[in-house]
């Protein structure tokens, strides 16, 4: 078991990172930490994808010195995917941050449970 | 076709009386109706005493029988005609099919020996009690309703006696319960209605228990018409596992009306509450309807050979002996006069059932003869009780001291009837008890056959114990009796009115006559027994 473990180092790291990110997003009460967890999770996936595209001994798929032959470069598709993924993560993070600001203005706290309690109290007053 | 008349005539007459009285009453009131009934009603409205009929009775009897209304005459004529019709039907014979409920269930009437015996007995008793009731009803309210239902019940009873098959018998049995209910709760007092309800639910319960047997028999042998000696052959009986249980259910079910042990609770409560003529008829004749049903099932449907020696016969004998002994014991300790007579009915009718349970010709003869004698005697006793209530309004036995001074002739008749019931030789009771005892000994049912006569004798002793003291205290009230109350109320030498006295005397004479010359009756019954066994 140990030899293959050493070989796919990148995949292992990304899996561990994914686990960390996932639990942070799920369990932390502080909203900012949740968002950071989400970003960790996404970056872990992009690391995994990038690692998949890498072929030993080949260069970056940017045509600098006129080389046309495909075998000189690594597989460009995963990189393309990573780019789109990054765009998606950025937009989601932006939206969640905006929401967090709006909640903070209203309930003056970043703790999700406390926000929920104050929200229920606010509602009782309205009734 | 002649069979139909005695059944339909009284029912139609009764219905007409009921319908007529509704209209008749208002007219009668308009045409200066008979003062007596108007006056008693008014008097009752004003009368405040608790006993209801008590004081009213005193005023009424003073007028004697001058107040016979037209309705009373029609009523008595109807009863007489009924007796004639029954006798003609008995002589004429024949059968008629009424109508068919479903393709397999048809109602029909047929005249045969036992049927005519019971029918004639019923109509004669009905006539005598009817005459007595005319006078008795002067002191009651709603006399017309009593007359109406009284007529309808006799029609139903004759129908029951002449039924051709078990379903017709069951139809008339149910109708008898319903139409005799108004007789029981005639006085509409609280305990009368309670007793009526108890009577109704006991009889209906018994009827439904018997219905289980009828269903079973209908399922096993299809056609339920009566044939002498029974329709069940040995292998048919073997084929039906539950036959014995079904017969036992029917025995206990129809035994309710005859006051047999498990379901007898209603009789001592219902009879005393009813007016005297009604309780006379209830005890004397209607209990015999239960007996008639059992005779038909055992001797004309299932057949004695199938049941002889089975656990059903043994159980039945035990039940009847238990009732005989228990009835007379309870009667002995009872203080209310009519309740005592009711308990005596419970034990006497079980004499008959005991005779039937022996399933041998002698026992059968003893049973049927006892049916005739007991109905005559018990009707006479109850009419006497009615007369005592009408004249002196005494209900309790210990009040009856010095009755001899009030109505010596009636008390004499009472004595003859009670001697007959006890079974003293010249009187009729002795004949039937003789056949019952010999039948039991000859029935070959081992120990029970011997215990039978012993219980009968003990019960005869107890019967003497609860009937004779009334006669003795009546004629010889003893030294310390001053008869003050009789003088105050001017009761000395005040026999009940003629209409009441005649039936009592006729019945007492009958007990003596049948006692001395039982020949023709016994021969008639033995002929039926030979046919059936």
């Amino acid at each position, binding site marked *: 078991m140990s030899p293959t473990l050493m070989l796919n180092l990148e995949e292992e790291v990304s899996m561990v990172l994914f686990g960390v990110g996932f639990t942070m997003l799920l369990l932390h009460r502080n909203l900012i930490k949740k968002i950071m967890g989400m970003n960790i999770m996404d970056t872990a996936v992009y690391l995994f994808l990038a690692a998949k595209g890498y072929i030993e001994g080949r260069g970056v798929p940017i045509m600098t010195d006129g080389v046309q032959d495909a075998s000189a470069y690594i597989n460009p598709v995963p990189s393309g995917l990573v780019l789109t993924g990054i765009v998606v993560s950025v937009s989601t993070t932006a939206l969640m941050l905006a929401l967090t600001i709006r909640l903070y203005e209203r309930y003056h706290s970043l703790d999700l449970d406390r926000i929920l309690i104050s929200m229920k109290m606010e509602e009782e007053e309205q009734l | 076709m002649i069979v139909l008349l005695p059944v339909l005539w009284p*029912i*139609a007459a*009764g*219905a007409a009386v*009921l*319908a007529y*009285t*509704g*209209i008749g*009453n*208002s007219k009668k*009131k308009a045409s200066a109706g008979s003062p007596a009934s108007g006056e008693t*009603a008014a008097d009752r409205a004003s009368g405040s005493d608790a006993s*209801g009929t008590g004081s009213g009775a005193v005023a009424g009897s003073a007028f004697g029988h001058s107040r016979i209304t037209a309705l009373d005459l029609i009523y008595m004529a109807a009863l007489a005609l009924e007796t004639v019709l029954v006798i003609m039907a008995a002589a004429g014979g024949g059968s008629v099919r009424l*109508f*068919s*409920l*479903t*393709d397999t*269930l048809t109602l029909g009437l047929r005249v045969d020996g036992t049927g005519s015996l019971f029918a004639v007995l019923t109509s004669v008793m009905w006539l005598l009690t009817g005459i007595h009731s005319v006078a008795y009803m002067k002191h009651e*309210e*709603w006399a*017309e*309703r009593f007359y*109406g*239902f009284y007529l*309808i019940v006799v*029609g*139903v009873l004759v*129908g029951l006696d002449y039924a051709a098959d078990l*379903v017709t018998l*069951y*139809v008339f049995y*149910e*109708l008898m319960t*319903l*139409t005799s*209910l*108004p007789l029981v*709760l005639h006085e*509409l*007092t*609280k305990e009368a*209605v309670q007793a*009526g*309800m108890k009577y*109704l*639910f006991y009889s*209906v*319960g018994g009827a*439904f*228990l018997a*219905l*289980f047997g009828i*269903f*079973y028999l*209908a*399922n096993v042998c299809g056609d339920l018409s009566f044939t002498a000696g029974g329709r069940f052959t040995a292998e048919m009986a073997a084929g039906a*596992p*539950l036959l014995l249980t079904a017969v036992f259910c029917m025995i206990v079910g129809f035994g309710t009306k005859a006051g047999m042990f498990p379901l007898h609770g209603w009789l001592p409560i219902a009879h005393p509450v009813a007016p005297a003529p009604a309780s006379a008829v209830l005890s004397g004749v209607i209990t015999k309807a239960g007996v008639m049903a059992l005779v038909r099932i055992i001797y004309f449907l299932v057949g004695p050979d199938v049941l002889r020696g089975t656990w059903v016969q043994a159980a039945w004998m035990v039940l009847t002996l238990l009732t005989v002994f228990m009835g007379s014991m309870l009667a002995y300790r009872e203080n209310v006069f009519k309740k005592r007579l009711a308990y005596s009915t419970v034990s006497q009718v079980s004499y008959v059932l005991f005779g039937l349970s022996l399933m041998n010709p002698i026992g059968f003869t003893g049973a049927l003869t006892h049916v005739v004698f007991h109905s005559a005697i018990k009707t006479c006793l109850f009419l006497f009780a009615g007369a005592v209530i009408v004249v002196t309004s005494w209900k309790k036995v210990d009040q009856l001291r010095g009755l001899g001074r009030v109505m010596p002739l009636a008390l004499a008749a009472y004595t003859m009837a009670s001697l007959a019931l006890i079974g003293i030789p010249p009187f009729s009771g002795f004949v039937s008890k003789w056949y019952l005892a010999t039948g039991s000994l000859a029935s070959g049912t081992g120990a029970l056959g011997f215990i039978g006569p012993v219980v009968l004798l003990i019960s005869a002793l107890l019967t003497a114990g609860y009937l004779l003291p009334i006669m003795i205290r009546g004629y010889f009230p003893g030294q310390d009796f001053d008869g003050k109350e009789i003088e105050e109320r001017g009761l000395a030498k005040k026999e009940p009115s003629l209409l009441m006295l005649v039936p009592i005397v006729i019945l007492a004479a009958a007990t003596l006559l049948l006692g001395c010359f039982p020949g023709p009756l016994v021969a008639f019954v033995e002929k039926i027994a030979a046919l059936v066994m």
Partner: protein
Amino acid sequence: MYDRLLAVPVFLPIVAGVALLAMNGWIRKEKRERTMQWLVEALVLVNSLLVAWLIAGCGGRSGSLVLFRLYGQLTVMFRMDRMGSFFAGLVAFLWPLATLYAFEYMEHDERRPAFFAFYTISYGVTLGVALAGNLVTMYVFYEMLTFATFPLVMHPMTTEAARATRQYLYYSIGGAAFAFIGLVTVLAYSAIGTTGFVPGGMIDPAAAAEHRNLLLFVYVLAFFGFGVKAAVFPLHDWLPKAAVAPTPVTALLHAVAVVKSGAFAVLRFTYFSFGTEILRGTWAQWIVMAAALVTITYASTMAVKEVHFKRRLAYSTISNLSYILFGASMMSPLGLAAALIHLLAHAFMKISAFFCAGAVMHHTGKNYIYELDGMGYRMPVTFACFTISSLSLMGIPLFAGFISKWSLCEAALSLGSEMSGGAGGAVGQVLPYIGVAVILYSALMTGIYMLSVVVRAYFPGFVQQVKEAVAGGSARKAAAVGAEAGITAAGAGAAAVIGAAHGQNDVGIKKEGNQDPSWLMLLPLVIFAVAIVAVGIHAGPVLRFLALIGGEAG
């Protein structure tokens, strides 16, 4: 030619009812209630005549009409076979009379158009259940019946009525959900692909053999599913509570239409969809029979305890319905014939009993048994009919009840003897006899709870009561009239009629106490009483017709 008209009697009342609902506001604004009522009665009468004509027309040859295709081979189809025509004929005969009765009862009710609208809609839907040609159509109309009748139970609009409605809905929907399982199983295992009714059942034997226990389990589920409307023991609680609705509703729906369509659905499902060969002698049959018997005993004992008049009759309905289910559970031609005769007899008996209760409640506002002292004199005709129906319920001969009890016990005993060979195992040998014993026990209980009302009405507890009941009129006359009209001799029918005629014209009674309702209410009552006695005295032709159905489907 008759086939095409089959759908008309079903949809004519439904359309009329919906139209009435739409015009609800207008009718109340212009105070046109009177004309609307007679219009409704005319329509119902026409519809009944149409049904009668179709029954006569179709006769043996059962024409069928496919209305539309619900899904796949499941079609909504009407067919007038003998059993369908029997139930449709019964409903068509009773509905016009019930509507007539409802006119006077709902006289000063503020929401009459809505009431009569839903009343007519449920008429159409019940005919739908009766004429259904296959299990799907019957299920569809069975479910629509719940929704057509729950506004009627809601009619009084009190909180109690709302609670009763809610319970009624939950039980009915629950039952329909379980019946749905039965429907789907029949569809899955049916030999002919569709769920059409085939006398003797249409599950193909091969599938039945290998999935035996599953099919039996589904049958028991479906029995209790359809049984909810027929108030089987564990699921009967909604019926007594629904007594809160106005009497025409309780009388017609909860004594005749709704509960009878439940029992009819069970009969149809057992004899025409599932088939008796699979079920005879199996543990499913004994469970079903035991459930029916438990209901009979439980309900008749509860009825004796119940003090509220209509709730007592509701309990009596529950026990009598389980007579029909007991007949159904016998899985034999005799059993089916007995179940149908009791369906007919009970319909007449119970509807007249409920109408009497309604008349008493409507005219004197008395709901409880102990308030009924001396009512026999005040309402002679009503109580004469009530006496006849209670005697018949008890099973006294010469009345319809006796005939149905006789055939039920006959069927049970023949099943008992058939099972004595050990085919149905130990239970099978004993249960039919227990069944007969239970029927007789419940007959006694019926006697107690019905006759106690009758005796209380005619022979009130103490003399003063009679005087006050007749308010000064001479006690003798009133009692005579009442008694003679009440407990009557062998010529029960004749006396009742005399009593009725007599009760009417006797001036003495009229002005003081006679609170008999108008002819609108009395006519249905008298017709039912006469019908009970007629079937009681001569049941030959009816039984022959039912034996035909039994034989064909047994």
